[in-house]
């Protein structure tokens, strides 16, 4: 057993990729966006995949989030291959086990803050009482206790991203994936979001995987992987994940 913050990690792989390849058709040719990615994330990991724009980060994240399928290779979720699963089975897996945070927040504008956070629980058909309780707890955690009745357009960018983080965690997923979560925020707010993610990683012992081209995000990671031209170039492990 390895200790990481307050989260005891037992090394069970949550997510694993084997020789992931993704080709996009471009005219008559193919663009290879991912070129043989092998990557494993274990329970409690806080990994950052860092790389320049166009290096294949979003493409990789979409495969890991099970919203896109690789051209070749396999994504294993909780040690089970996913390539044979139907769209419906993948959707069920996503709603129960995966939380997503988007660069552009992607809140549903017609729903209140609390309803946005509640949405994944409606999908899992959690009972009403449990939904209320969990929504309140997650909003409290992201520092938005009094904001439940507000509409997303009444919030600042940073607040919206906090709502999105609460939404990603509300079903107590095994894995939270974030695609450039700080790219639409100023640097101070971006740091606050990263600190929030880091704290939640420790508190919930959830695997976090953040892709970014923002070098400052790297400071929060235990593992930093560098991606370039669709290949993982190298990995740097950081023992105590505390930024300066």
């Amino acid at each position, binding site marked *: 057993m390895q200790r990481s913050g307050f989260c005891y990690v037992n090394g069970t792989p949550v997510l694993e990729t084997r020789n992931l390849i993704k080709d996009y058709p471009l005219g008559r040719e193919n663009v290879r966006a991912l070129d043989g990615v092998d990557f494993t994330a274990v329970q409690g990991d806080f990994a950052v995949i860092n790389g320049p724009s166009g290096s294949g980060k979003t493409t990789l994240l*979409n495969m890991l*989030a099970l*919203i*896109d399928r690789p051209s070749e290779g396999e994504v294993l979720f909780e040690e089970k291959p996913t390539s044979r699963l139907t*769209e*419906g089975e993948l*959707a*069920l*897996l*996503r*709603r*129960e086990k*995966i939380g*997503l945070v*988007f660069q552009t927040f*992607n809140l*549903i*504008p*017609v*729903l209140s803050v609390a*309803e946005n956070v509640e*949405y*994944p629980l*409606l*999908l899992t058909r959690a009972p009403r009482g449990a939904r209320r309780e969990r929504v309140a707890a997650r909003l409290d955690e992201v520092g938005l206790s009094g904001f439940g009745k507000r509409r997303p357009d009444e919030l600042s960018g940073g607040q919206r991203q906090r709502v999105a983080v609460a*939404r990603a965690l509300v079903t107590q997923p095994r894995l939270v994936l974030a695609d450039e979560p700080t790219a639409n925020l100023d640097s101070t707010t971006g740091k606050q979001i990263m600190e929030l993610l880091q704290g939640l990683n420790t508190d919930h012992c959830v695997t976090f995987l953040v892709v970014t081209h923002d070098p400052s995000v790297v400071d929060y990671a235990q593992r930093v992987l560098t991606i370039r031209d669709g290949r993982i170039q190298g990995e740097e492990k950081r023992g105590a994940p505390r930024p300066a």
Partner: protein
Amino acid sequence: MARLALRNLSRNRRRTLLSAGIIALGCALSLVVLGFVERSRSLIQESTVQQFGNIQVADPALLDGRAEGFEYLIPPAEQAQVAALVRTERGVLGTTAQLALSGLLAVRRTTAVVRAVGVVPENDVLDYNDLVIEGRGLGPADVGAVLVGQTLADELGLRPGDFVNLTATTVAGAFNVSPLEVVGLFRFSSVEVERAQVFVPLSFAQLLLATDGVDRIVVRLDRLGRTWTAARAIGVKLDAAGIPLEVRTWDVLSPFYQSLSGFFDILFGFLVAAVFILVFFIVLQILTLSFLERTREVGTIRALGTRQGEVFRLFVEESLWLGLVGGGIGVLAGAAISFLFNAASIPWQPPGTVQAVALGVDFTGAVVLIPFAVSVVSTLASAFLPAYQATRVSVVDALRAV
């Protein structure tokens, strides 16, 4: 999820109001037209039953108009048998017999071909005394008395108290003529009846034709709606008793009612189809745009684990609400228009009638339900294709949409 569907309608209020308004307009329009058609139809039904009774039992040769002589006459014994048999049927209020004849009505130097209908005076099944507007009706003691329609009376210059001669051919083929006193003038909704039909006591008609038979037995029922089941049951009983008579219902007996009712059906059917198609295409345009705008949101909720079927249902549910709201407003608007129409009592003379009636619009269950259902169904129908398309986009493409 129902909450999200409903909330989605508030997304673009102007657009929602526009679509609901179009649905409501279609609904209200077809509601008022259907209400008008149904009111007119029931007016005509009333006057048809007033003329023919609910059901008539007679010889098929007479009913089909292919009688050559008087072979269709029903002798007294058979008449009694039929009456007894019919009375056992549920909902039958009573029966009466009639005997009609063609004759020549002569007044001074003018003559008119008439159909004289012999009726049992003051019977409680079908007598025409309540149509009398001048003079009096036929009484049980009358023999040589006649009720003449207002139109014919005007043409011949007749007044109550005047005498006319009626000439006809007897069953045996001899000419027979008898004087009659005009005791009353009647008005009937149909011009044809007023001009060409007179009413005489049954006993007089039998005397003139030199017969003791009648040509039909008229059946009165408690409810109009019972007509067809009762007719079928009576037909079965007649067959079982070996009586070679046939049963006809009021709607079949009146070619005028049949053609008008058919015309109403076509008119309304056409209108409903037009409204359905119009609402379908306009709402289809609006919903296509509305769903397309939300492609990214579809991507988001699908990434969060919403299945394609659930997204589809969300959109369909949203348009169901739209249809219900639009249809509901349409019903209210239709009710208001109907109310105003009925309150204004605009005079209207239905085709083939003698008196104007107030232009009326019915507001009953069916009149409300059909246009409402049509609005909801056409709204739902317009949602299916765009909703299906919205779920077909891949999650990744949907998320990339602006």
